[in-house]
């Protein structure tokens, strides 16, 4: 029996390879200076969905909420085998915390309508919160199984999975629909398919088309009127749509979102203060092996917040 999977994926700054260049003088992170990557555990979630489709048939839809640039991870989903991808982008969604994000994603999933299994990576490496998956499950009224380590099969409409909590494992069986969050150890994500790369490398969202074509047309004729660009974009979008290469782009209106629950307005948690940490060991300090020296060392560790 075929099953429909929806995978939530996120484009994140590559925090594992952060360098001093990426730190601004005020100690905050300059996102623009960091390479943007496919959140690693979301690739495992995608792979689990593809495994389910391989075994049982069905569809895999990937959805990403983020700036227009996040279309990059959706193209990656197409290269690896996703049937349909949707970019959810809207300035009014900026500054959403995990609660607002989960609300928006749950509205998008409702809008897609048909689904048996919703999958998320366990957590994203920029926030490491692991909250959005369970928060979506609650909003959709679905059971959840987090920390998934292995997908074991679906029989009679019930899915079997193993979850790993670090000091042991549990085998669960759940009715569908269900939400799963997937660990990085769950599988080895398949590589891109060369054939699919050839086919989908031209896939674009309307925002991407607009930016690319405006740049092109203005290079040829700086006085080109906006209306002319607009109609050219629409024409091109229609061509792509017919070729199955137009990446769907949704905004908050499309998913019927209550704006009071999105963005800063819908986010109960607020970042009040941000402090940078000194990143590299440029400085080496030596302390004498005396009570005074040791006290100074401890004080130093407290001041730079290494010790709480």
């Amino acid at each position, binding site marked *: 029996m075929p099953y429909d999977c929806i995978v939530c994926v996120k484009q994140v700054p590559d925090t594992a390879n952060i360098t001093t260049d990426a730190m601004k003088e005020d100690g905050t992170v300059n996102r623009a200076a960091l390479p943007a990557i496919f959140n690693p555990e979301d690739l495992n979630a995608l792979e689990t969905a593809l495994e389910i489709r391989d075994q049982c048939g069905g569809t895999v839809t990937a959805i990403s909420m983020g700036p227009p640039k996040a279309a990059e991870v959706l193209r990656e989903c197409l290269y690896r085998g996703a049937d349909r991808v949707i970019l959810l982008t809207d300035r009014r969604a900026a500054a959403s915390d995990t*609660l607002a994000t989960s609300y928006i994603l749950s509205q998008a999933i409702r809008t897609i309508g048909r689904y048996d299994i919703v999958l998320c990576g366990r957590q994203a490496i920029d926030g490491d919160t692991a909250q959005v998956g369970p928060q979506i499950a609650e909003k959709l009224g679905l059971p959840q199984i987090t920390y998934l380590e292995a997908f074991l099969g679906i029989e009679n409409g019930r899915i079997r999975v193993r979850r790993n909590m670090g000091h042991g494992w549990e085998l669960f*069986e759940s009715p569908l629909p269900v939400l799963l969050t997937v660990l990085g150890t769950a599988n080895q994500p398949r590589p891109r398919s060369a054939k699919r790369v050839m086919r989908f490398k031209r896939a674009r969202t309307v925002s991407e088309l607009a930016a690319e074509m405006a740049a092109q047309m203005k290079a040829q004729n700086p006085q080109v009127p906006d209306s002319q660009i607009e109609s050219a974009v629409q024409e091109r979008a229609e061509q792509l749509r017919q070729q199955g290469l137009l990446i769907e782009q949704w905004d908050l209106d499309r998913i019927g979102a209550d704006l009071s629950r999105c963005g800063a307005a819908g986010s109960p948690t607020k970042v009040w203060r941000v402090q940078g940490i000194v990143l590299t*060991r440029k400085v080496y300090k030596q302390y004498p*092996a005396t009570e005074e020296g040791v006290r100074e*060392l401890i004080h130093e560790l407290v001041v730079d917040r290494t010790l709480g």
Partner: protein
Amino acid sequence: MIPVNRQGEVWVYAEQEDGALHDVSLELCGKARQLADQLGVRVGAMLAGHQVAGLADRLIAQGADKVYLVEDSRLAHYQTLPYARVVCRLIEKYHPQIVLYGATPLGRDLAPRVASHLRAGMTADCTDLQIDDVVEARTQQLHPKLLLQVRPAFGGNIIATIVNYDGWPQMATVREGVMPLLPPDPSRRGQVVREHVELDDTLFVVRLLERHMEPRKVNLKGARVIVAGGGGVGSKENFRLIYELAGVIGGAVGASRAAVDSGFIGKEHQIGQTGTTVRPALYIACGISGAIQHRAGMEESAKIVAINTDPEAPIFSIAHYGIVGDFKQVIPMMIKALRQRQ
């Protein structure tokens, strides 16, 4: 969300597994006590499970004034849906102002589910919690005695302080081992409040088929602080000092291969190419020369402190802070300095 309630209690979710309380919940009772004293309110612990009433005394000894107890044979093992229902019902009934959970796999499964249901704020993996008055930048409104939730972000490259003005309760998960585990005070008195929460069958649709728990192992990977000893520690007895310092800081104990091969400590503590690779916020290397194989497993640590009698030891070349001296003298001084701070 629940109404802002500045008389509300400070709550801890008491995580238990097979009738044993998780250390992080006991650590949190102590922290909750400190926060509650600053706010002038009481500490409550939520305890759910099957035949777990016996654990209430320990929660009280660790700082709880009240233990909200929900017992049901169907709660024998943790499951998201029924446990989340219990926690939501208790919060909706008593309106605590703060709710803390351990940032364990269980806590990180449960807490966001509860927050989503209540539409309340939730901050993950805090490493520090404080109470302070906060002026909201946008409105210039003063919010007295708010919970400051401090957590690392961006892969640990920045420290963010999060607040929650009105999406209450103010909720956070806290990493294991970050708050000191205070000695229990058996003379403390508290009240056990037995609660009944209706749990319908639809909450039990997910079936647990099999479960395999391993005894808690040395958690080097998750440790924020690691105190490690090498061949220079000299003996199994001397390793007690390493353990003592780790205990005071709230860190894990690591070792170099030299120390493991000499039989000073078990292999599960080994850090390096053939052991575990770690990147804690703080790594204190005692009597470790710093062979390349060991460095490969720890040089990504955010801060490295090296203590060694040999000023030429390679460990100093990657350390941020060094003390040339005998760890047997230096560690007691560190413990003393840390205790004075507390």
